[in-house]
């Protein structure tokens, strides 16, 4: 069974038909890259997976998205629980204006964990998990804004992982980072794959090639091609995909 299954998903911003009939399934513990030119709908699709588009007024969605066998747009779905299970990392590192410790602890607190020892233990474990511990262990009580961009982004990943989701959505997580920070995040993605199902939107073709198992190419709201990353990058079935990957358009 697939971890995430979308069937005939259409999405509208008002009159604008942003996604057309997207059917796409992802296996557990894999990394799927969503690629395509700006405005192709890949971020919109990503944000359907944790119902983040609900926040935008005047949108409409048809079709179904099934995660772990449950339709997440079904009537009985609790959005808070869904979002607990589907973590998200944003384009620009956006730690809360709190201490490094509190950034990671926030998710635990809002999910009703009050035991001090448990919070502390999970904060530490999660910061270790994103390979940030050595850099921040002496300044957990300092503002998260004192960290570098790359460190902030890893902190944001820790923030998302602390509440133990099974899926991690990443919306161009390295586009605001320098090459060294980027490679650290990519290494992290590679490690996290063992425990999480990861969906990543990226503009960087090399990145898609490096980190993902499968790649989906979006163009003008449609899913043009979806296959193993290796296949997409070496012998794509559709000419549009090839043109985009080789940089002939986009």
């Amino acid at each position, binding site marked *: 069974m697939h971890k995430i299954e979308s069937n005939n998903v259409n999405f509208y911003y008002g009159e604008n038909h942003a996604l057309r009939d997207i059917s796409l399934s992802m296996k557990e513990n894999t990394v799927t890259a969503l690629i395509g030119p700006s405005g192709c709908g890949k971020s919109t699709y990503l944000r359907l997976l944790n119902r983040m588009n609900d*926040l935008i007024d005047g949108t409409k969605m048809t079709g179904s998205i099934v995660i772990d066998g449950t339709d997440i747009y079904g009537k009985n779905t609790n959005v808070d629980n869904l979002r607990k299970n589907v973590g998200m990392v*944003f384009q620009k590192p956006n730690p809360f204006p709190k*201490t490094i410790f509190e950034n990671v602890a*926030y998710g635990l607190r809002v999910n009703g964990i009050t035991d001090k020892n448990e919070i502390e233990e999970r904060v530490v474990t999660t910061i270790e998990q994103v390979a940030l511990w050595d850099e921040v262990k002496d300044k957990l009580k*300092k503002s998260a*804004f004192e960290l570098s961009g790359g460190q902030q982004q890893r902190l944001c990943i820790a923030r998302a992982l602390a509440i133990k989701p099974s899926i991690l959505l990443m919306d161009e997580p390295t586009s605001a980072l320098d090459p060294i920070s980027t490679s650290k995040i990519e290494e992290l993605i590679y490690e996290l794959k063992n425990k999480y199902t990861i969906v990543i939107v990226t503009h960087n073709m090399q990145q898609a090639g490096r980190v993902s198992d499968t790649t989906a190419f979006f163009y003008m709201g449609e899913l043009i091609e979806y296959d193993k990353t290796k296949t997409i990058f070496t012998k794509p079935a559709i000419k549009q995909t090839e043109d985009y990957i080789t940089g002939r358009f986009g």
Partner: protein
Amino acid sequence: MSTENNLAKKKRRSQNIAFGIFTATSYAIVALLFVILAFIVVKGIGVISWEFISEMPKNGMTEGGVFPAIVGTLCLVIASMIFAFPVGVLAAIYMNEYVKDGWPKKIIKQMTNNLAGVPSIVFGLFGMSLFVNKLEFGDSILAGGLTLGLLVLPVIIRTTEESLKAVDDTFRQASLGLGASKWETTSKIVFPIAFPNIITGLILSIGRVSGETAPILFTVAAYFLPKLPRSIFDQAMALPYHLYVIATSGTDIEKSRAMAYGTALILIIIVLISNLLANALRKYYGKKVKMN
């Protein structure tokens, strides 16, 4: 080559002219402010003394001090803020975080803007008919404070809304993305980030409230009342109204002229102190938000 040089020269010249105008206007504004301040300081500093600040007016308000007016103005500021600040902030949070875009929101917004455009004397009249007469608060700090509160409500709502809007949306999304409820997101993330800026609304409204005359005219202000208010149902003197009285309809206008400038100076100093205080508060919270 030479045409290019000419073009560059021309561009530089027009830029210099534009910048020159900008610089001149901004300095003119600062200069004007200093002239006004200097004028009041020069004319009013002579009467400022401990007695002026701490004593009751005497001899038909031509001598003595303005103590009850200072106390009255402070009471009015506090009363109006206790009412308007929470109401305005909550209304703005509701408008910005909860109401969906659409015509109800547009109407509320438009109404708020209209409220800001209503002349202050109209607020005074409304305050008199509702608070003083209908609700039978009488001429009182309560009636005057509520009237002033209504007057500054739009200022508070608007600055709070702007401060909330300035909070990057990804903070909300990140919080909601962790399974936090909308209320948790608003109260634990969005509001603390916006708070230092919301204080600005408080500063602006304190300045406005302490200087307004028309709204307190029929609701609280006493012409001459040489004792301090004991409860919110008492009348009180207030600095702007006192200034108006001794400058236009006192017992001996010529004799009390210096006192009028002194009163104006005290009023300005109160506004200045409240601004500095609020600024310090804002800096303090700005730091605290980052460290929290």
